[in-house]
């Protein structure tokens, strides 16, 4: 029983391949059903977004599992031959696969690190898989864990807090000047794309009054319609400036449209209420001397870019923190997976009963010191045969259920009945309450023979 992932993402495949491979939502169910009909594929979940297409699966054997899933991907997308596809695919198993899923969920593998969409997409993919019953004990546990890891990363690091786009950086700065944007007025001068985007962000943050001016009055009227604002004549916008808390400038003019004295006049008229000016135009449209005007805060495109850069760097730093968290969680999950394996369980069971037997025999023989060597052996033999008979059925059942769907459930039961997760019998009674989480049912188990879970089998070039 192995967890594997086969897929491609923005890191390994160009958009031409990704768009072909993407599975539309309407076909997800059918695809999942087909995936699990492959020999040796026990559980599966399909994550398909514009930046990645990945199949997470529980398979009996790693190598054949990789093969089956590649086959599945090629079959799902007839327009792609497997020769075209294979070079872009990555395949991971074991802790690498689980770690990959955790990183994806926590948005550490995203194009924009820390974006929040991916978690929702993973949840949706999981819902679909649940609805089509293509997941079992292992996948359910691993995906749920991935979702909780993502939430932990979000709350314990600042990975998704900081603005990483120029237009959003403007909003972030505005919030350091005005605590409540909803009563503020924005004056949009010119119709540069970035300025429009920033205006849109500001409106999304609650700004209600938008005034718009462009050189051609018709254009201003159109834009005003679109933003729900009021058009202002270009010749008069300087008089309107005093009424604006935020001035967004982005025109094609090759000279300064707004001088320091214009801003000074506006600030005076405002009774020194602070004013926030953003100049996104290149060449600049606001005289940089405005910096010396008290209570006017001017930022140009470079300032905004600097802010974005800092935030990106900070996100990367936070990502390192998040990576450590993912590492811890992967370790815990792998520990749990290991407990579901049959062989170690049988060995542990054997050791546990031998331990008990040995302790009891010694206790009894200590009191019966008059016994001859022969009698001692008889006593020991008695103990051994009772113990062996007691656990015989358990052993046989465990071995025979290895490949049945109830395998993990039996393993789990045996571990609990015989306290196999407790360190030693001596302090058993004190540890009665140490409980392991309960795993529901249905799952599959591989052969007893353990296959070493090598890290990366194949890595896309």
């Amino acid at each position, binding site marked *: 029983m192995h967890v594997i992932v086969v897929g491609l993402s923005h890191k390994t495949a160009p958009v031409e391949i990704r768009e072909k491979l993407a599975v539309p939502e309407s076909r997800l169910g059918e695809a999942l059903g087909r995936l699990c009909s492959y020999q040796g594929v026990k559980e599966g979940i399909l994550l398909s977004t514009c930046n990645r297409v990945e199949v997470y699966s529980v398979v009996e054997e790693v190598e054949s599992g990789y093969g089956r899933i590649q086959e599945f991907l090629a079959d799902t997308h007839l327009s792609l031959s497997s020769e075209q596809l294979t070079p872009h695919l990555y395949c991971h198993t074991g802790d690498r696969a689980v770690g990959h899923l955790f990183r994806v969920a926590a948005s550490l593998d995203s194009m924009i690190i820390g974006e929040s969409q991916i978690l929702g997409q993973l949840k949706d993919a999981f819902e679909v898989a649940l609805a089509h019953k293509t997941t079992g004990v292992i996948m359910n546990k691993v995906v749920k864990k991935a979702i909780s890891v993502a939430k932990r990363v979000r709350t314990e690091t600042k990975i998704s807090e900081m603005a990483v786009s120029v237009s959003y950086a403007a909003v972030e700065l505005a919030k350091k000047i*005005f605590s409540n944007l909803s009563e503020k007025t924005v004056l949009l001068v010119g119709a540069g794309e970035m300025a429009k985007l920033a205006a849109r962000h500001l409106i999304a943050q609650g700004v209600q009054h938008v005034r718009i001016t462009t050189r051609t009055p018709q254009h201003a009227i159109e834009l005003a319609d679109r933003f729900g604002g009021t058009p202002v004549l270009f010749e008069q916008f300087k008089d309107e400036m005093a009424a604006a808390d935020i001035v967004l400038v982005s025109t094609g003019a090759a000279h300064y449209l707004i001088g320091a004295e214009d801003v000074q006049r506006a600030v005076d008229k405002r009774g*020194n*209420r602070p004013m926030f000016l953003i100049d996104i135009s290149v060449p600049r449209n606001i005289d940089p001397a405005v910096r010396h005007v*008290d*209570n006017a*805060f001017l930022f140009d495109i470079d*300032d905004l870019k600097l*802010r974005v850069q800092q935030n990106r760097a900070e996100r990367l730093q936070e990502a390192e923190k998040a990576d450590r968290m993912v590492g811890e969680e992967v370790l815990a999950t792998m520990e749990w997976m290991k407990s579901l394996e049959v062989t170690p369980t049988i060995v542990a069971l054997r050791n546990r009963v031998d331990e008990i037997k040995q302790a009891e025999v010694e206790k009894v023989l200590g009191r019966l010191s008059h016994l001859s060597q022969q009698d001692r052996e008889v006593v020991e033999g008695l103990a051994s045969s009772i113990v062996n008979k007691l656990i015989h059925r358990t052993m046989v059942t465990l071995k025979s259920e290895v490949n049945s769907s109830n395998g993990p459930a039996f393993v789990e039961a045996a571990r609990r009945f015989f306290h196999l997760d407790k360190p030693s019998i001596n302090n058993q009674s004190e540890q009665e309450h140490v409980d392991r989480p309960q795993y529901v049912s249905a799952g599959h188990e591989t052969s007893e023979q353990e296959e070493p879970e090598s890290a990366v089998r194949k890595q896309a070039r």
Partner: protein
Amino acid sequence: MAAVSFMITMVLYFAGTVSFLVYVLRRSEALAKVSLGITAVGFLFHTLALVARMLSASSSVPPSFYEALSFFSWVMILVFLIVEFRHRIPVLGSFMVPLALISLVSAAALPETVPTLGPVFKTLWVHVTLSMLGTVGFTVAFVAGLMYLIQDRLLKSKRFNVLYSKLPALDFLDHLNLQSIVLGFPLLTLGIVTGAISAEFARGSYLNWNPEQTWALVTWMFYFIVLLGRLTVGWRAKRAAYLTVVGFACVILTLVGVVLKDHGALS
């Protein structure tokens, strides 16, 4: 009981100060909660100390300067906790808690035997309480002004550092500044009036131009002008911040005047 609680309070405020100062420099939100917790527990002990002292002192004994300062720092923490509870700006604690600690330490540094703030009069309690409340208002205004000037400087010079990310928006600080002065000013006015009345009873004159009275009047005039300027000619934002920081010097000088007068009265 009072002495023990007082010691515990001091230790906790000290821990709170350190914790809040580290918080300003680090990107750790958890630290804000820790600092806040320490301060809140300290505040409880402080309350206990004040109550114990009030119960043990007979009503005829007038307040000592020591008690006044202790009360002053208690109100400061109270105001901080209320503002923090309403607006969630823990960085305020990095400014307020140290100030409260300083005031408490200076209270402890004064010999406890400094008996009174002046002659025995029932009105004196009222005078001290009102003046202290007014002073707390100006202290908050000072802190808001200081934070405003720092944030203004950081924004102007485009230094987006840790402090920048922790300080609240400029207009919030300006508003906090205005509110504290609007609350502090009438309280100080009443404090001065009641002080003058008790002085009349004690010495037979409303005003004898000792340092305390002089500085109190200067402070009053100063904040009066600041308020007036704000309401009429737009002395807000950066100018208001500057003025309140300067005005706080008058407040401190008034307090110094009080100490001097007390010691003078003793000798």
